[in-house]
Structures are given as C-alpha cells and as structure tokens.
C-alpha cells in the first residue's frame, strides 16, 4: 500500500493543476492538467516499481507550467498590460505549454505500457513521440476554443459568427514551435533508447538483453 503513495501524490498534484487552470479559465492548461490527472490515475491503478518518478515529474511540471501561464505569463499580464506584443507572447506560451506536453509524452508511454501490457523500444518511443505530442495539442486547442471563444459550439454548427479572440497566426506559430520541440525531443529520445537499449514496459524502464 505504501508504494501507492507517490502515485497518489501525483494524482493530487495534477488535480491541483486542473483547479489552477479552472480558476483562471485557461483552456489549454485545463486540458493538459486533465491529461496529467488521467495519466496519473492510470499509473495509480497499474504502475509498479520506480515509475512513480515519471508521473510525479509530469504532474509537477504541468502544475508549474499552469501556475506560470495563469500568473506571470498570462495573456492578461504580458499582452493586455503592454509588456510584450501578442506575437512575442505566442512564443512564450508555446514554450511553456511545450515543456508541459513533453513531460506528458513520457507519462503517456509509461501509463499505456502498464495498462495495456505494451513494450516500447526506440522505434515506438522515439519515432512516435512527436506525433503523440502533437495529438495532445488538439484537446488543448479544443478546450481553448470552448472556454475562451464566445459562441464556440454555435460557430461549429454555423449558427452564430463567433468573435476571434486570438489571431490565427498565433495559433499556427504556437503549433509550429511545439512541432519543432517535439521533433527534437523525439530524436533525442530515440538516440538515448538505442544507445542504452531501453524499453518501456509494464514494469517500467528496462534494459533489453
């Protein structure tokens, strides 16, 4: 039972991050925190051994990124108060969200390996990591859309013209920056996995013999 404590801690940290996101109505960070919460909950049920480190690191990273995004680096603090232009803020937001997603990619591999008896070598862990990271961006933008754009769902079914609250270029540049970050992470992860003959399995990180 005692070995479950760090996993439970990770769930609680992720829950705190969700709460922080809801507090300031930050759609992207609510989505990423919710992913951290789900992955931590899966780890609580299925993971064994030292894997808790990955989930605690992921939850703490997401919590820190959420706190940064809702306070010091929020749109309101940096753009509305004139500290920087929206384009510069786009880079800052993309970097902070990208760091959170990278920690979630690792958590995703460990959680799914334990829950579904998967085993990832350098091909799956390195080759697919950037795709999984980009996939995590979509729920992030969907929640941003639903929370931050007035009349969002009505605009999807064509009833109401919704108001643009962010520029399209900032969304695209944000996604591009994250794409570059995830590709670099993917390449690095692939190389490390090849060199150290690592596998992510149901038992955590293993060395292939």
């Amino acid at each position: 039972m005692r070995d479950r404590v760090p996993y439970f801690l990770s769930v609680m940290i992720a829950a705190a991050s969700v709460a922080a996101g809801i507090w300031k109505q930050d759609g992207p960070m609510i989505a990423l925190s919710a992913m951290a919460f789900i992955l931590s909950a899966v780890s609580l049920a299925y993971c064994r051994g030292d894997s808790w480190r990955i989930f605690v690191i992921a939850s703490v990273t997401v919590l820190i990124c959420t706190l940064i995004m809702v306070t010091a680096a929020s749109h309101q603090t940096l753009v509305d108060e004139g500290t920087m232009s929206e384009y510069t803020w786009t880079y800052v937001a993309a970097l902070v969200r990208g760091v959170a997603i990278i920690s979630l990619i690792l958590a995703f591999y460990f959680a799914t390996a334990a829950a579904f008896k998967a085993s990832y070598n350098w091909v799956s862990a390195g080759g697919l990591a950037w795709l999984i990271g980009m996939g995590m961006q979509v729920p992030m933008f969907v929640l941003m859309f639903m929370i931050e754009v007035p009349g969002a769902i009505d605009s999807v079914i064509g009833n109401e013209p919704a108001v643009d609250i962010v520029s399209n270029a900032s969304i695209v540049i944000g996604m591009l920056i994250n794409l570059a970050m995830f590709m670099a992470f993917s390449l690095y992860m692939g190389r490390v996995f090849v060199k150290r003959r690592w596998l992510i399995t149901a038992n955590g990180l293993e060395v292939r013999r």
Partner: protein
Amino acid sequence: MNPATEEEGSQTKIDRRERKVAWAMLIACPLSVMLLFVYVTLGYAQGLTAGHPMEYLQMSCILWAVIMAVLPAFRLMRMISLPYWFIILLYADMYMYILSLTHGFYFDLPWWANFTHVISSMVVTAIVFMALCLMEKHSPSHNTLGSRGGITTVLLMIGLCFGAVWEIMEGFTDIITQVDYMSYGSVHTLGNLFADALGAVLMTMIAWVIMGRQSAKQIASKVRIGSKNIDKHTHGGY
C-alpha cells in the same frame, strides 16, 4: 479435398472477387463523376448559383475522376490491396466532397466544412490504424503496442495529431501568401480542430469495434502492398 488445395481455391475466389470489384470501381466511379461534369457544364449544378466558378467545378470533377481510378487500377496491377471497410470510407469521403462541391453546400450550409473535416479526419485516422496494425505485425516481439486498448489509445493520439498538422499547413499557407485563402481566422482554425478531434474519436471507436473481431495481425494481413504480397495471400501463401 486436400486442405491446402481447399485453401488455395478459396484464396483464388477472393482474388477473383477483388478483381471484379476493382473493375467495377474503375468503370463506375470515374464515369459517375464525369456525369457530374456534364451536369456542371450544362449549367444545372447548384454550386454555380452558390458562387463556384464553372471552370473550378469542371476541373474538380476531372481531377476526382482520375483520383478515383487510381486505387482500382493499382489493385488490378497487383500493386495494392486494401480492406473493404477502408475503401468504402475513403470513397464515401471522396463522393461526399465532390457532390457537396457541385451542389454548393460549402457556401449554402455553414456547418458543412466542419462536417467534411470530421469525415476526412476519420479517413486519416483509418490510415493510421492500418499503419499501426502493420507496425504491430512486423515489429520484433519486444516492441508491441499491447492489447486492443493500447493500439486504440496510440491511434487516438496520432489521429488527433494529423488534425493539428493539417491546420499548420492551412495557416502557414495563409501566412506565406498573406491572403485568407484557407483558414479565415482563428475561430475557423479552432472549429476545424474541434471537428478533426471528433473524427479521430469516432474512427478510434470504430477501430475498437473492429479489433474486437480481428487481431492487429489479421487486419494488417488485409493490407497488401506489392505483387509479391498480393500473390502470396491470394494464392494460398497464408
């Protein structure tokens, strides 16, 4: 009868049936789209009154007639053979696109563009599903996506990814050309991502149902590329 001969007989039957379907598609699909071309040229298409230029609709009909002939032609040349469920989904998407274009749905129905994003995202996720099944079949035993749940979870994430990649392409085209040609603003992009996500989720649910009946390896065995693989399967190789 010898079981091997029996197996060979049934595979030859499958081959014959697949070739018949390919011939039917090769004739019927481009022909039906060329009928739409005539319909457009005679000026009856509602897409013309909705605002599409005639040349645009005519060229779209010709282009899609050629594209629709590619897969059946490749099957007849023994270059590629795909599962029926995927072919039906792909051709339904292509017909929906060309019919809605000639009927002006993109202009007359404000929700249509997002609806087509849902269907297109389903097609892309279906391609990813087949790729993951192929990967599962050809990977060494120490590299596996695990059970049905493992494959569908990875499928969902990668299916979602291609929605984002598509929107990057649309948005970047507009940034480079300095014209609102593809994305029409952030709400349009976010709405498309919402629709893409819905399509990826729907196809993942379908993949979950398919994997309840067949294993990833069985699904992968129906995706055959190259004459060697097609002959091996249709002439008793399995």
